[in-house]
C-alpha cells in the first residue's frame, strides 16, 4: 500500500530497498510548507482516489525499476497533516549515485503529475481552498522516460 494514514516512516522505507550491493541511496521527502501563494498555511488535508492512486504508484515504481537499475520505495500520506509533516517520501537505492538521483527525480515528478491525490489547505486567516497546480503553471517532468 502506497497511501498511508499514519505518519510516514523514512527509516522503514529505506529498509525496504537498502542492501549491501546498493551503495547509493537517494531520498526525497516532501514536507507540508507553512505558506502558499502568500498565505500562511495552518494545515491541510490530502484525499485520494484510493484504488487508482495505488495502481498509479505501483506503475510508477515498476516503470522506474525497468528504466534504471534501481529499487524504489514510495509512500504518500492521506488525511489531515500539520505543517512540517512528511507528505510524500520516495527512496531510491542503486549500486551507483547517477541512476539513483535520476530515478528519484523522475519518480517524484511522476507522482505529482499522475497520481490522483488532492490537497485542501487551511489558512491561518481562516480560509480554506483546494490547491490547483494547473492554475499557476505546473512543473513538467524533464527526466526520462
Amino acid at each position, binding site marked *: 500500500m502506497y497511501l498511508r494514514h499514519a505518519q510516514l516512516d523514512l527509516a522503514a522505507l529505506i529498509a525496504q530497498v537498502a542492501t549491501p550491493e546498493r551503495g547509493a541511496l537517494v531520498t526525497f521527502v*516532501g514536507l507540508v510548507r507553512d505558506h502558499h501563494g502568500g498565505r500562511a498555511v495552518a494545515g491541510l488535508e*490530502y*484525499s*485520494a*482516489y484510493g*484504488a*487508482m*492512486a495505488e*495502481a*498509479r504508484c505501483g506503475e510508477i515504481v515498476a516503470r522506474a525499476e525497468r528504466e534504471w537499475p534501481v529499487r524504489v520505495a514510495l509512500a*504518500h500520506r492521506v488525511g489531515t497533516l500539520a505543517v512540517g509533516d512528511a*507528505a*510524500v517520501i520516495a527512496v531510491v537505492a542503486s549500486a551507483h549515485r547517477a541512476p539513483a538521483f535520476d530515478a528519484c527525480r523522475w519518480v*517524484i515528478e511522476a*507522482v*505529482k*503529475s*499522475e*497520481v*490522483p*491525490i*488532492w*490537497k*485542501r489547505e487551511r489558512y491561518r486567516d481562516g480560509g480554506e481552498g*483546494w*490547491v*490547483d*497546480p*494547473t*492554475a499557476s503553471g505546473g512543473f513538467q517532468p524533464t527526466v526520462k522516460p
Partner: protein
Amino acid sequence: MLLFARYAELFGAERLELDLPDGATVADLVSALRELPGGVALPALPFVAVAHQRATPEMILPEGVELAVLPPLAGG
C-alpha cells in the same frame, strides 16, 4: 460515476448516476455533467478516468467499468 475533492463539492455528491444512451462518449458524459446544478464550473475537458486510466473525449464509455471525473491533481 465517482467524483472527488472539489468536483464532489460542486455537485454535492461523491457518486452520481447518469442515464446516457448506448454509444455515449466521454465527451457526452462531461456535457451531461455540465448541465447539472453546479456543473457550469466543470471545465470542458476534465480528467476522466475509465477503469483507472485517463480517457480521451471521443472514447465510447464501456459498460460495467468504474468512471471517475478528477480535478487537477495536487499530490506530492
